[in-house]
C-alpha cells in the first residue's frame, strides 16, 4: 500500500451537491436540488468565465422568447467515473415549439446555465456556431452524460 495525494473524487461529487462550504454559504430551506435555467445570448454579448450572475444585457429577444430563458429541468444525480465527477440536465433544452414558434432575428451563439434558486448565480457558459431562428424551434441536445462528455465535469 502507498499513500497518494489527491483531491478526493467523493469531494468532487459533493461539490455538485453543495455538501461542503469553505466560506459563508447561502441558507437552504430544503435539501432538494436547486432550479436552473438556460438563457441565450447574442454573438455581441460578453458572457464568459467572469460572468457571475445572469443579467439580461446581451440576451436574445424575440417572439415567444421570455427574458431569462427556460428551465433546464432536473439534472442527473451527480456521480463519478474514475476520478471525474459529472452531471447535466436529464433532457434536451428546447426553445419555442410548433404551437409557440420562436423568432430570434439577431444571431446568437451562447447559452448561459444559471441557478435560479440562488440569486441567478452563473454556472456555465456554452457556445456554438451562431444561429438565428425564424418562426421555428431551437433545440440544444446535450452530450452523453459521462466523465468525458457531460456538460459539467470536475476532473
Amino acid at each position, binding site marked *: 500500500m502507498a499513500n497518494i495525494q489527491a483531491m478526493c473524487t467523493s469531494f468532487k461529487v459533493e461539490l455538485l451537491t453543495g455538501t461542503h462550504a469553505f466560506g459563508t454559504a447561502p441558507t437552504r430551506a430544503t435539501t432538494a436540488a436547486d432550479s436552473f435555467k438556460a438563457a441565450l445570448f447574442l454573438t455581441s454579448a460578453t458572457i464568459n468565465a467572469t460572468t457571475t450572475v445572469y443579467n439580461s444585457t446581451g440576451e436574445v429577444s424575440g417572439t415567444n422568447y421570455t427574458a431569462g430563458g427556460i428551465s433546464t429541468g432536473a439534472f442527473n444525480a451527480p456521480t463519478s467515473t474514475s476520478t471525474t465527477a459529472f452531471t447535466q440536465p436529464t433532457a434536451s433544452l428546447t426553445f419555442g415549439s410548433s404551437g409557440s414558434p420562436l423568432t430570434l432575428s439577431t444571431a446568437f451563439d451562447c447559452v448561459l446555465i444559471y441557478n435560479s434558486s440562488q440569486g441567478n448565480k452563473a454556472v456555465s457558459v456554452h457556445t456554438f*456556431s451562431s*444561429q438565428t431562428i*425564424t418562426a421555428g424551434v*431551437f433545440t440544444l441536445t446535450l452530450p452523453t452524460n459521462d466523465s468525458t462528455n*457531460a*456538460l459539467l465535469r470536475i476532473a
Partner: protein
Amino acid sequence: MITTTKGLMDEALLKKREGVIDNDDEYIAWVEYWHDNELVHRSAHVILKKMPSMGGSIASF
C-alpha cells in the same frame, strides 16, 4: 404544414433548404423554408458533443 411567419403553410408551397455543421464540438442541423424569396421559417438543432471540464488541483506540503 409548416409553421411560418405567415402562419401554417403547406410545405409544397415552400422551398426547403437544409444544412449541417459538424466539428469536434458540435453537430448543428438547420432547416429553412422560403416563400417567394422570403425566409419564412428557420429552425436549428444543436448537439453539443463535449464540454471542457473544470480541473481541480491540490498543493503538496
